[in-house]
């Protein structure tokens, strides 16, 4: 069978998937650059389509978000509009990556609504907020003191704010956004902001691009080697679900509420987590989250585990959540021994899209 990947030339996601195809004895997939799709240039699709992340390419980023410093925070609304227009051009082709699923996964509000409607555990959400004042008013109405404020179309924790408020006006935010001049930029570490004007300014800067606000779900902690009992780091799980089966999982730990690796998060001990939580139930939650996106061969589910290790919530479902190079599949699954890309190639061979 033939596969065509929409991606960015030179991106390692493209190379990793091509390597999995070779291992399975398939021909090297053809590549349609995202740039051509976004610029409206003609392209041809040979066989079945796989949609990959546009990646880190500066030119593609500029096409999606408009010109400007690629490290800036914001621009999500324009990014999403352009991205969806690009996705529309892919609609005519048989695909293992459903474009409507992808569009929903890149709108945190829509994805949350879909999961909630399906009975998948998610933190409760606040509904639209147009700015900081409205956010605080809505939080007060609901009696919420701690929330996560997420740009509706962001990724990699860009612009995410972990916000806490207390009686008497105290407010504290942790975010990787850092102010430089009159703009906000993605930094490589999470900082604390504890003056209200600063926090309000960040929220107000992000709000025009759309915000999704969830009540803070208190995450469980994990002992860390060399750290005394009772301290530890918070953790969550990235679980890759391929064709309905949770096949790969990593534990991500951090001393701050965001566990992303580029923000100082670290891989945690999966065996310890498996022993500490009801694992089958956790995997069932991930499978149910994935089943909300039935046209997608693969999704990456971010699973939160509550402080008591017994409650779960899905924080996000990622259309391109499979970039876990070299990670072996979970024992006892059909992907045992292979990486996330091997699992997807095998799934495509079992049930080619449009067949």
């Amino acid at each position, binding site marked *: 069978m033939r596969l065509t990947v929409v991606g960015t030339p030179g991106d390692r996601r493209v190379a990793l998937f091509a390597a999995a195809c070779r291992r399975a004895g398939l021909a090297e997939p053809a590549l349609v650059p995202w740039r051509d799709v976004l610029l409206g240039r003609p392209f041809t699709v040979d066989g079945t389509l796989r949609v990959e992340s546009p990646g880190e390419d500066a030119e593609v980023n500029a096409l999606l978000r408009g010109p400007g410093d690629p490290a800036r925070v914001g621009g999500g609304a324009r990014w999403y509009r352009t991205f969806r227009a690009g996705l529309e051009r892919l609609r005519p082709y048989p695909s293992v990556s459903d474009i409507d699923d992808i569009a929903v996964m890149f709108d945190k509000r829509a994805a949350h609504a879909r999961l909630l409607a399906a009975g998948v555990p998610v933190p409760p959400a606040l509904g639209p907020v147009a700015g900081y004042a409205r956010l605080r008013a809505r939080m007060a109405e609901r009696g919420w003191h701690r929330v996560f404020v997420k740009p509706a179309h962001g990724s990699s924790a860009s612009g995410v704010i972990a916000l806490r408020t207390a009686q008497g006006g105290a407010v504290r935010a942790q975010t990787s956004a850092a102010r430089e001049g009159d703009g906000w930029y993605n930094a490589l570490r999470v900082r604390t902001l504890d003056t209200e004007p600063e926090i309000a300014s960040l929220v107000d800067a992000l709000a025009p691009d759309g915000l999704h606000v969830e009540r803070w779900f208190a995450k469980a902690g994990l*002992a860390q080697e*060399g750290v005394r*009992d*009772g*301290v530890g780091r*918070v953790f969550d799980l990235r679980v890759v679900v391929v064709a309905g089966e949770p096949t790969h999982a990593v534990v991500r730990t951090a001393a*701050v*509420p965001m566990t992303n690796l580029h923000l100082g998060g670290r891989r945690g001990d999966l065996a310890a987590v498996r022993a500490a939580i009801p694992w089958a139930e956790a995997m069932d939650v991930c499978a149910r989250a994935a089943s909300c996106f039935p046209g997608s061969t693969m999704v990456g589910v971010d699973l939160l585990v509550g402080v*008591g290790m017994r*409650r779960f919530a899905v924080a996000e479902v990622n259309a391109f959540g499979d970039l876990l190079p070299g990670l072996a599949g979970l024992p006892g699954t059909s992907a045992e021994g292979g990486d996330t890309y091997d699992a997807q190639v095998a799934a495509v061979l079992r049930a080619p899209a449009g067949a």
Partner: protein
Amino acid sequence: MIHQFHTSFAGLPVFDLTDTTAAGELPAADAVAWRIRLDDYVDEFDPWRELFGTFTERVDTTRVRALLLGNWGNTYDVESTEPLALLTGAAERFPALHAVFVAEYLQEETEISWINHGDLTPLFTAFPKLTEVVVRGGIGLRFDPLKSTVLRDLRFESGGLPARVVQALGASELPALETLQLWLGVDEYGGDSTVEDLAPLLSGERLPALRDLGLQNSPQADQIAAAVAAAPVVARLERLSLAMGSLSDEGAEALLSGQPLTHLAGLDLHHHYLSDAMMERIKAALPGVQVNVDDQRDLEDDWRYVEVSE
């Protein structure tokens, strides 16, 4: 940051008593330390009151030895005095209680600097047999000087411990106290004690049994080190901790040039601003002492952080 519940307390494994587990099979009353906590965000205190009621109905409280008071609602509206009042009001039903952990909240549940306390005195008067007490959070915390011949282990974890707490401890009579750990914290979160406030503790006059002293999590770690270097209490210690704070070469120099420390079993300095050379010097000067100099902080940073403040 505090991200993990204790798995044991007062020598007992912790049993997590929540709405869910309270309905299931429970261990023997004296086999575990009982953590009573709500497993969700709740504003008001009533659900915890109900859970405590279930606990006292289902468990033979006369054999309960250790309690951890966990998430009882939002900590800025509900002071620790509320769960404590329930407990002290039922004191005659807990004749075996000897260990209490007040406010085992995790960072993900509430800020340590936002846990509101009040007068802790009733806990000590209602339970004169307490041997171990841990309190997390410092805001609003106060108590009269303590008097106990059995209290062995005291720990105050905070991002800012009020000076009046340090002073009350200095004026306490605790002849059996073996372990005292204070996370002193920073001024902006209520940690307004000075090195002078520590003097009665450092003299050791009222602490004849002290073996383990921690003056931790302080931005004044260098001054504390200098005071410790000449403190009479040090001769009787087995373990000393100046960890979690801002200790730099200046404080370490004072420590090394003071009284001998070679009798210690352990010296904990983790989370510090010591140079590599000073870390080596300390280890070389204290052979046979287990020295912990983990978690060296960024010496180039203009600001010196303590480990736990917010």
